[in-house]
């Protein structure tokens, strides 16, 4: 079953074209990755499909809803974690979860969620005093507290240490195992390789390939490299010497 459908998405900021032509489908229950260099349009794409920005052209359906028209209903069913969004410094962990759960008609049990994310010991700690990994876990918890059917996670592990990154990957797998479809935006190839069932590779606002990580590696044509990695494969697709898609 398809839960997200994006076709021929376009978005400009003034003269700057952020998304030229992006199309993909996300199936229920998968972890779908969007990878590509900085400025390739990954974040703009997820902002359009979550209704945070209005697309200039193309069609988007998320759970059958149009993000631009059905914003409120979409947000009841889609949990979103954005880069660079914080909470007030003096807000405590339990208060944030309690507050955000009140926004949804059928929220998850935030105490159980707090325990699953290993935040119970920090329940009375204010946001400013949390470590980077703890802030990230709280952010994921807030994206899940509304009991969403889809979770959109943007640059989840940027700035985390290696152990915290691995813990977060495990968390994303557990989220998927609950039956939540995950859309993961990242520029870390190890993350994409280990987590994602399928990947959309984006370059300069266009999708240049959609496939499983293994297929992308198998299809890779990297001159002079005997056993290319996913990073080699994606760089070959998105680098300055890559051929223009058609």
């Amino acid at each position, binding site marked *: 079953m398809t839960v997200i459908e994006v076709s021929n998405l376009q978005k400009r900021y003034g003269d700057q074209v952020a998304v030229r032509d992006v199309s993909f489908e996300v199936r229920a229950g998968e972890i779908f990755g969007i990878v590509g260099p900085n400025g390739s349009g990954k974040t703009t794409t997820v902002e359009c499909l979550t209704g945070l920005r209005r697309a200039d052209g193309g069609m988007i359906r998320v759970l059958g809803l149009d993000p631009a028209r059905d914003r409120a209903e979409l*947000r009841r069913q889609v949990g979103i*974690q*954005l880069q660079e969004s914080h909470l*007030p410094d003096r*807000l405590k962990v339990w208060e944030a979860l309690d507050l955000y759960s009140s*926004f949804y008609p059928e929220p998850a049990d935030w105490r159980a969620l707090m325990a699953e994310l290993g935040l119970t010991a920090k329940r009375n700690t204010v946001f400013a005093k949390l470590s980077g990994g703890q802030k990230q876990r709280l952010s994921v918890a807030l994206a899940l507290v509304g009991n969403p*059917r889809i979770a959109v996670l943007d640059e989840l592990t940027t700035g985390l240490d290696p152990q915290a990154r691995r813990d977060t990957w495990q968390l994303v797998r557990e989220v998927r195992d609950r*039956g939540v479809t995950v859309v993961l935006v990242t520029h870390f190839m190890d993350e994409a390789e280990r987590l994602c069932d399928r990947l959309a590779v984006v370059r300069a606002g266009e999708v240049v390939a959609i496939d499983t990580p293994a297929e992308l590696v198998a299809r890779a044509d990297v001159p002079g490299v005997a056993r290319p990695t996913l990073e080699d494969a994606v760089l070959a697709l998105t680098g300055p010497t890559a051929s223009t898609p058609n």
Partner: protein
Amino acid sequence: MNAATLPETVESGAAGRRRRGRTAGRSTARLVVTEAKLFVRDPLGSFFAVIFPAALLLVLGSAMPGFDEPSADIGGRKPVEFYLPIILAMAIGTVALVSLLNVLAADREKGVLRRLSTTPVSPVRLLVAQLAVNVAALLVGSALALLGGWLVFGIEARPNVPGLLAAFVLGSASMVALALLLAAFTPTSRAAMGIGSLVYYPMLFAAGVWTPGPMMPEAVRRVADFTPLGAASQALQDTWTGDWPQPLHLAVLVGCTALFGALAAKLFRWS
């Protein structure tokens, strides 16, 4: 936690509306409680809004020579009596340009509003919660100042109550509109504090904090009449002594509220 149990389609009809209505009521209450906690946890903000007006009145009243004694220069009345309505104007200015402006700017800078915009709750409701908490703080701060004036200095007044309330409400509305407009301009909380104090101190001057009542030179008063806090202060002083506020002051307050409010609504960005 099982996605399969969630409804496949948008819930429609009366039951869905009722449920959404309940969620809206519950989340608004939770937002107000949360904002109140955050307000109390910010020691500087809560001191300035709640304690400062009464503290300033008590410090001035007991430290300034002759402040608490009848003076022949002003018709045998006590200077502190003139000062009380000015303290109320100052309380309005402080809540708007210090507490409210800082929380608005900090939330936007940190991406709190952006985070909120990913949920079904509109950031407008956060704004409403912040306004409610700041207005409550203003009322408590003003009540403490009045209580202090009455208990410590035995100030007796026969204010024109409807006029006083009108001046207080319109003065607050115009300063809140000004704070929203400034918040629309300031990208960071540092900038908000800078621009806030750039506006705050001249506003206090116009309100007569340094030149209370009859001590304000006529030329200054004429300029102050056209500033929101100056007009609010004059209207509060007039109604404090039992008169009606002057139409000019009410017109300035209504005009400022409309102008600043419209500009703020046009310029304000949520992220």
